[in-house]
């Protein structure tokens, strides 16, 4: 075991089952902003932070949740690889104290791995509320590791945890040895003998057990080091045991671990026979929300309410923002006149900044409300239920229920949605889930809808926006069917659903607001960077050559747009401004709105200009195109990163352009025929 020198940074990893509060503890330790949510699988990537305590620096790593060190899916492999390969100085095993037995299974693997461990019994607030009692001394003695009680929510026990981390930092711990019974112990011993002299940071006993458990990665590693004998010994011992006793060795090993945990927990934890009524509130809600007949209608209703609130409530604020920009542009133009600014500067400010960026920012309240509602769904514990409720329908489409979580996340932003597929263990299910996600209408499309529906569909704005969301889902579903049917590697049975359903919790208002603000501030940052840059480019192209009229056909923007525009004739919007908007919308879909703002001379004028160019039908077709065509640059990037394939990334881009164009044309043509 390593000892820690003075002044060295101590690395601390947070490991544990999903949804036990690792990210919450991470935030409490480091003051960080790791994403927290009440469903398993929130964290899918390791996140680093740091803190200082008693002059000692610590580096903390928040890991994805995992039930074991087996590593079925990518997020679990990230956790496993970090623990097993990077060997942090201390591992804090974060557990849910209300569910100790199940939670301690992972701990037994960590103990056998021989790392410096601290057991953190988190959610102690809930445990105490239920009048449970824990004898810490007994658990410490039984397991041979320090135990700390924390509540990430109430922020208690964090100092004690820091203290314990320092004390455990370089200490060689006396580990508990799990006794697997004489027969299996003999087998472990025999395999261990064959491992004499192996160069590995892990105890030989751990390696021997992994061989007997048939852990592929560890076996490969051992073979690489030329210890094939040990592997053969493992195979021999396994078949001998299984023949002699007629049990499955892997099963037997796992059951022995549970047996030990059970006896420890029985001795040291007292839980009152559970308060039926209290506990079952969550169950009662579940009987309704996950009911065969009610589950899906309830979900649809919730989504409908979400979108309704998003723009009715958001609309309330729009006037204020409108007034603000009106005031601001009046002020700035007055000021610019006063200082006799050259005309290109005033054009830049009024068209570029106020017109371009302002026309996007005006939708900030809507976006904030959408994020607020999505955060609420996450924190209240509904996400896992949605996956569960939709499981059957998703299966019919050819997707696992888990994919549904990425669909809901997609309403916020497709980037984290694509990343969330890491929890899907089957590669083909994961790929399919990634490929359909860009059709889910993210918050960046919302400004486009709100701009057009606010001007052209004032009577039935809600219905029109909802229809676009539905259309996105429909295209995703049909594409999934099509891919499943035509692409050979996507064929095959869908992996079944097993998912922990966390208890419903009433989220704290502050928590939801922080959560919402984190995402909204990303939107603001985007407005200040990418959207701003895009708008400057458009303003520039609209202003040059100087001989041409601003935003006229002869400007560079006009020439570019006129080159593309004819292809959009069948879709109903064959003018160059729309072409330019779609062209730059690839960078970020909000730029579609920003472009109109810049080219048509500001947000205030849009209400008058848009109806000149668009009919209701062509506006709808344009919104459909904006929804479906090409994922934005950030999404393309994350699709590449997650599929690790240019081929699939290119496929996604081309397919979506085609799907968007064809759907828009179809809608326009059928519409013109009918109307």
């Amino acid at each position, binding site marked *: 075991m390593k000892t820690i020198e003075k002044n060295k940074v101590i690395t601390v990893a947070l490991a544990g089952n999903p949804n036990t509060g690792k990210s919450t503890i991470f935030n409490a330790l480091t003051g960080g902003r790791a994403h927290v949510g009440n469903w398993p699988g929130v964290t899918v990537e390791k996140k680093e932070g740091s803190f200082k305590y008693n002059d000692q620096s610590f580096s903390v790593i928040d890991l994805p949740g995992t039930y074991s060190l087996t590593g079925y899916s990518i997020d679990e492999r990230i956790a496993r690889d970090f623990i097993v390969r990077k060997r942090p100085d201390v591992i804090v095993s974060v557990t849910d104290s209300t569910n100790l037995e*199940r939670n301690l299974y992972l701990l037994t693997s960590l103990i056998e791995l021989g790392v410096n461990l601290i057991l953190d019994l988190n959610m102690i607030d809930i445990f105490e509320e239920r009048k449970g009692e824990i004898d810490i001394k007994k658990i410490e003695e039984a397991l041979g590791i320090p135990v700390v009680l924390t509540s990430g929510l109430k922020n208690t026990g964090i100092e004690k945890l820091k203290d314990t981390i320092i004390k455990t930092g370089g200490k060689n711990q006396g580990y508990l040895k799990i006794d697997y019974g004489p027969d299996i112990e003999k087998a472990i011993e025999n395999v261990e003998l064959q491992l004499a002299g192996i160069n590995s940071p892990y105890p030989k006993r751990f390696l021997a057990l992994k061989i007997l458990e048939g852990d592929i990665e560890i076996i490969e590693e051992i073979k690489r080091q030329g210890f094939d004998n040990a592997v053969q010994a493992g195979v021999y011992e396994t078949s001998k045991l299984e023949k002699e006793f007629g049990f499955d060795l892997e*099963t037997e090993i796992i*059951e022995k671990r549970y047996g030990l945990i059970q006896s420890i927990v029985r001795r040291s934890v007292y839980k009152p026979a*559970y308060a039926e009524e209290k506990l079952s509130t*969550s169950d009662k809600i579940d009987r309704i929300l*996950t009911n065969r007949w009610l589950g899906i209608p309830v979900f649809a209703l919730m989504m409908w309410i979400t979108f309704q609130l998003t723009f009715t409530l958001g609309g309330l604020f729009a006037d204020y923002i409108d007034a603000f920009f009106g005031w601001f542009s009046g002020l700035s133009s007055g000021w610019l006149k006063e200082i006799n600014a050259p005309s290109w500067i005033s054009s830049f400010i009024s068209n570029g900044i106020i017109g371009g960026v302002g026309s996007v920012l005006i939708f900030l309240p809507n976006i904030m409300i959408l994020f607020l509602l999505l955060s609420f769904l996450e924190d209240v514990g509904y996400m896992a239920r949605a996956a569960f409720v939709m499981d059957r329908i998703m299966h019919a489409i050819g997707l696992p229920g888990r994919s549904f979580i990425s669909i809901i996340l997609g309403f916020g932003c497709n980037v984290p949605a694509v990343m969330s597929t890491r929890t899907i263990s089957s590669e083909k299910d994961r790929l399919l889930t990634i490929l359909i996600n860009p059709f889910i209408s993210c918050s960046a499309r919302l400004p486009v809808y709100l701009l057009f529906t606010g001007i052209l569909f004032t009577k039935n704005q809600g219905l029109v926006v909802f229809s676009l969301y539905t259309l996105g889902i429909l295209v995703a579903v049909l594409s999934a069917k099509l891919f499943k049917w035509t692409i050979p590697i996507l064929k095959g049975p869908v992996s*079944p659903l097993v998912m922990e359903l966390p208890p419903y919790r009433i989220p704290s208002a502050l928590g939801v607001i922080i959560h919402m603000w984190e995402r909204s501030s990303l939107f603001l940052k985007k407005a200040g960077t990418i959207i701003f840059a895009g708008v400057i480019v458009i303003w520039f192209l609209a202003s040059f050559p100087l001989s041409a009229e601003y935003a006229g056909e002869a400007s560079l923007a006009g020439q570019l747009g006129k080159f593309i525009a004819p292809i959009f004739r069948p879709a109903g919007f064959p003018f160059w401004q729309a072409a330019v908007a779609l062209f730059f919308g690839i960078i970020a879909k909000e730029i579609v709105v920003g472009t109109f703002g810049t080219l048509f001379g500001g947000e205030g004028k849009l209400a008058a200009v848009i109806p000149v160019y668009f009919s209701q039908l062509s506006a709808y077709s344009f919104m459909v195109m904006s929804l479906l065509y090409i994922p934005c640059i950030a999404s393309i990037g994350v699709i590449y990163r997650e599929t690790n394939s240019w081929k699939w990334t290119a496929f996604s881009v081309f397919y979506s352009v085609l799907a968007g164009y064809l759907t828009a044309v179809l809608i326009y043509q059928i519409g013109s025929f009918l109307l």
Partner: protein
Amino acid sequence: MPLTYCKPGEQFQVTSLYGGQGFIKRLFEMGIHPGVILKVIANSGKGPVIVGLDDTRIGLGQGMAGKIMVKPLNIKEGVR
């Protein structure tokens, strides 16, 4: 009998699991292993099932529940 046929509100003991190695191991690691006592929380027929393990609730998709064999426990709720 398979878990699919179990009535909500009753307790059962897991006797065996069927399926691939990976499938079984995953369930074991989540706490569903032979000998463990489950409570069926919701089961609306052939659809998915929610089981309770202590205070944890686990949702099992359609195909899954049918592979978990249980026997009824003749113990009233709340009494061990």
